[in-house]
């Protein structure tokens, strides 16, 4: 509920549209009541043979109500939808604002991209919150109360009866059903999850299932969970049909009571028979608005879950940042030092880095190698302050990075990550991200250097760079880093999908530009490392070996063995 409060707060920013929607909703509701009330009155009046002018006035009124109702309904729809879309826009911006300071650290925690996709879906699904949960009850209550006040002029008992009806159809019955529905909803979600897992396993693990002859079991399980899901869903559907019909019945019976009570009052002489038809028509109409209330709880629950998921992601405050008192020197190569650095990912027992110490001189070139999972990328993340060390100290140019702002490090480095994002747009937009004021010539030159001259700056890029190959994406990322032109290079397997020849050309340009800069290269290949000032070999979160290429080869240690295996690998 706390999360829905945030949504409501964002909603109230659009006060004007919200109030206008409510106003038009009210007008639409009340004119409908007026329309049917007057038609009931008209027909009764007509039966008493009134003068013609009275009838004419009534008919004119009838038309007026009809027109007003149609127009207000239009206004209600227009403003409520506009409000909804504006609210969604606010929500997106707000969510982005909250997520932004947490990135990129938060993406480590939620490794799968599905999470973000779900979040985007949650934002969309919150449109129902305003349209179906928030303002309709307000409109309903106002319309009802106005009707009750009007009715009370004719009969206070009937007015009271309507109030009882409102409480029953808008509160008691929906609340009761919401309670009984809760468990079913929960079950539906659960069995859907199970089915989804089963289908995923069938498709992704098919070969293994087939060979281990578990396909029949899997089919059996799949059929069972499909049945379970469909049955649960059916129960859910039947139950909500039942709720709706039940609510309709209650409201119809209230109208029935109005008729019975009205008839009784007329017979007793407490009510003019002229108004009986009108009151029945009013009752029938006003409860039409109450029937959708039966669905309100499920929309509410849906919105509650969506907003909960949405905001629980960004709830955690950004790690308390020590006041960054120091800033990195500009325009000079930085030295990198690590002292006994230890790091462990949340919810993992194994240490990702364990007592790592290293010293990279300003302007030196270092390669970090080791099998996957050995802690190379983690080391990079710590250098970029995407993750914080558990123990030990990291210094850039002699300054402990705990006292330097993240942004300061990022501004001063050229980074290529393993996964580099490319946005929907053009090649130009994606590459020019590097720095302001880049000319097309500079961009084209950079593309040439990474052997991408076949791309034009105006070529389209799809979301996530879907239309680019892995190698093209890596080369574009390198071009971006080269254009940024800072003095610290942090490259995480930048060319793993690029062939050896192209890699060599790219490295040639890269090292030419970085000749005086500090460069850290995480490498999956052991080729081309001969000229490195230092090669650091990692395994299981520790440094097992370090030295120049020749030293390591002469040592015949871990690096040598890895090199031997690599030599024998045919691709």
């Amino acid at each position: 509920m706390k999360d829905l409060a945030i949504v409501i707060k964002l909603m109230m920013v659009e006060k004007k549209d919200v109030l206008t929607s409510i106003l038009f909703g009210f007008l639409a509701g009340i004119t409908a009541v007026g329309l049917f009330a007057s038609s009931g009155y008209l027909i009764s009046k007509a039966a008493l043979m009134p003068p013609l002018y009275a009838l004419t006035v009534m008919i004119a009124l009838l038309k007026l109500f009809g027109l007003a109702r149609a127009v207000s309904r239009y206004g209600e729809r227009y403003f409520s939808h506009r409000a909804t879309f504006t609210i969604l826009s606010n929500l997106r911006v707000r969510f982005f604002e909250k997520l932004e300071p947490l990135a990129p650290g938060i993406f480590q925690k939620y490794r799968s991209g599905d999470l973000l996709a779900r979040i985007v879906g949650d934002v969309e699904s919150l449109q129902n919150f305003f349209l179906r949960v928030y303002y309709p009850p307000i409109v309903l209550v106002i319309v009802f109360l106005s009707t009750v006040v009007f009715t009370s002029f004719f009969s206070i008992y009937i007015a009271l009866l309507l109030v009882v009806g409102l409480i029953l159809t808008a509160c008691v019955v929906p609340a009761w059903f919401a309670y009984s529905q809760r468990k079913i909803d929960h079950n539906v979600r659960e069995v859907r999850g199970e089915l989804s897992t089963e289908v995923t396993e069938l498709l992704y693990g098919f070969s293994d299932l087939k060979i281990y002859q578990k396909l029949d079991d899997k089919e059996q399980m799949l059929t069972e969970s499909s049945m379970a899901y469909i049955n649960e869903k059916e129960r859910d559907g039947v139950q909500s049909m039942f709720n709706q019909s039940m609510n309709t019945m209650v409201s119809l019976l209230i109208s029935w009571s109005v008729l019975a009570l009205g008839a009784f009052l007329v017979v007793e002489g407490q009510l003019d028979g002229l108004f009986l038809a009108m009151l029945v028509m009013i009752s029938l109409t006003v409860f039409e608005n109450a029937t959708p209330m039966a669905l309100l709880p499920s929309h509410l629950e849906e919105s509650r879950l969506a907003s909960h998921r949405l905001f629980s992601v960004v709830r955690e405050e950004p790690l308390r940042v020590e006041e960054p008192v120091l800033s990195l020197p500009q325009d000079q190569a930085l030295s990198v030092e690590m002292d006994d650095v230890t790091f462990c990912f949340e919810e993992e027992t194994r240490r990702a880095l364990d007592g790592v110490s290293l010293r990279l001189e300003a302007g030196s070139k270092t390669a970090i190698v080791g099998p996957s999972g050995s802690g190379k990328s983690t080391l990079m993340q710590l250098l970029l302050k995407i993750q914080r060390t558990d123990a030990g100290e990291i210094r850039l140019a002699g300054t402990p990075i705990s006292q330097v702002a993240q942004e300061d490090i990022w501004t001063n480095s050229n980074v290529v990550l393993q996964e580099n994002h490319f946005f929907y747009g053009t090649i130009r937009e994606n590459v020019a991200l590097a720095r302001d004021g880049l000319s097309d010539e500079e961009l084209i030159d950079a593309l040439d250097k990474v052997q991408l001259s076949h791309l034009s700056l105006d070529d389209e890029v799809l979301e996530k760079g879907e239309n680019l190959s892995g190698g093209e994406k890596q080369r574009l990322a390198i071009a971006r880093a080269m254009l940024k032109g800072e003095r610290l290079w942090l490259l995480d397997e930048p060319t793993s999908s690029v062939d050896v020849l192209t890699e060599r050309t790219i490295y040639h340009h890269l090292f030419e530009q970085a000749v005086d800069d500090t460069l850290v290269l995480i490498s999956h290949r052991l080729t081309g490392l001969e000229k490195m000032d230092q090669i650091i070999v990692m395994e299981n979160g520790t440094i097992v070996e370090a030295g120049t290429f020749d030293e390591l080869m002469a040592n015949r240690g871990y690096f040598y063995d890895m090199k031997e295996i690599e030599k024998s690998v045919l691709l």
Partner: protein
Amino acid sequence: MNELKSIAKTYKGTRMFLVLIAILSGMTIIGQAYFIVAIVERIFLLGQSFGDIVPLLGWLALVLVARAGLTFLSGRAGVRMAAKVKNDFHRKLVTKFLRNPVQSSLQGQSGQKVSVMMDAVDEVDSYFSHYVPQVIQTSIVPLMIIVVAFTQHMYTGLLMLITAPFIPLFFIIIGIKTQKKSEEQMDKMATFSGRFLDTLQGLTTLKLFGRAAQQKESIRKSSLDFRDATMSVLKVAFVSSLMLEYISMLSIGLIALELGLRLVLFESVTFFTAFFLLVLAPEFYLALKELGSAFHTGRGSMGAAKKIADELAQKEQAVEWGEARLDTTVPPAIALRGVGFQYGEQGFALKDIQADIKPYEQVAIVGRSGAGKSTLLHLLAGLIGPTRGEMIVEGRSLSDYKEADWFDGLSYISQHPYLFAGTIAENISIGCKEQASHFDIEEAAKKAGIAELIESLEKGYDTPVGEAGRGLSGGEKQRVALARAFLKKPSVILFDEPTTGLDLHTERILQASIKELSQGSTVITVAHRLHTIKHADHILFLANGELVAQGTHDELMKSTLEYRNMVSVQQGGVTE
């Protein structure tokens, strides 16, 4: 919509039932109006006592309860029909998936297929649970009302008859036009939220380049632009429903006017008739309007139905099996006789492979990426069937044997073994048919060099892995796959050697394990390690889907230029 329509047609019983319900609903609607009007008339004009109307009140109550009850029955029938249809779709899809998934997983379509099974099938629901009952309801109820109107007062009937067509007409003229536009808008909506997702996913990149702040404004702006574009479409839709509302209002007004005039001026209708018709008129137009909104509901299901239909229509390349028994305790002799394989119509082809694989042989499949190595391995595994030629096992075609017998003797260690949701122990013991003892599992884990790691985990062998469980690294997964093989003791092992990225430890274990496993079986490896290739008894050298040469390493070095080039270039590239 046609697929769904023809499915709906097969549910004759449900449709008959819905028709019956609709007729009864129509009767309750008319009954409701009748009793209300009768009661008002007796009290208001005829001055009867309360006791006189009690029976009528009783009838009215009954009719009202029946009306609600019928709504429920109709809805329930719809929901049940939807459940049956979905169940049917699930069954058909699973059957389809079971017959054909290797090709699809090779083509990277697994995610898409999951979505068809989960989302598309769900989307079909509303067609059967809402649209079908609604259409039946609206094609019957207005008809009944208009008949009643004619019997009561011909002019009202005529007015209804004349005005009614305007509503569907209006739907056709305006509705369809806006429908198309609004569907386009729905597509844009999907694109738009795709872009938002794109920005979120790229946040790391944006921050590294110091560009995050300016994205906020661009999100707001594009959101609002999107809102305005959507509103302009919605406005048209709203105006058209305004017009519809207005048409029905106008029609009811006309009916009321005519009735009023006759009642007062000409005294040619009674109060009862006039009031009765006036109560029925809105019900008449309401039912017509609901048809329009039902169409809207039905449309959403169409796209989904198409996706399912496309999936079901995909060509199958199922593997055939027979009834002959195969002794799997010893490695069989395998022969490939002119074997070829093709994906779909054109796709990739493996051509005319001719080879003999003797029991206990160490076979290496070698070739550049894209040469057809994996396809050949899949063929040898029996995961796909040859589209040309035959694979002969112990003198008979593989398709003669029982599927179970063949797979009983087979282990396949892929580059990316799949871990199922379950414990590590369960994942290892998936390898053997009988319930494996805990001792055997641990023994297999030890041989695969993963026991130490498993024991270091808090829950040991009971640690959950897979979908929701702990993630294992690539090397660890490989070792789990090895453990499966040790437990199973197969007579044929198919092994897709990793290309890169393993730690030395796993490298050594892989080599030692395969060596140990090869004592009791034929091992066919898609080989990337020179070590493996050199030690193979028999190399199949593929290029562009063809078997270019076969023999031992030394033979091929002598005989085949392409092979020699490949080996030496790679080594040259490495040592440089």
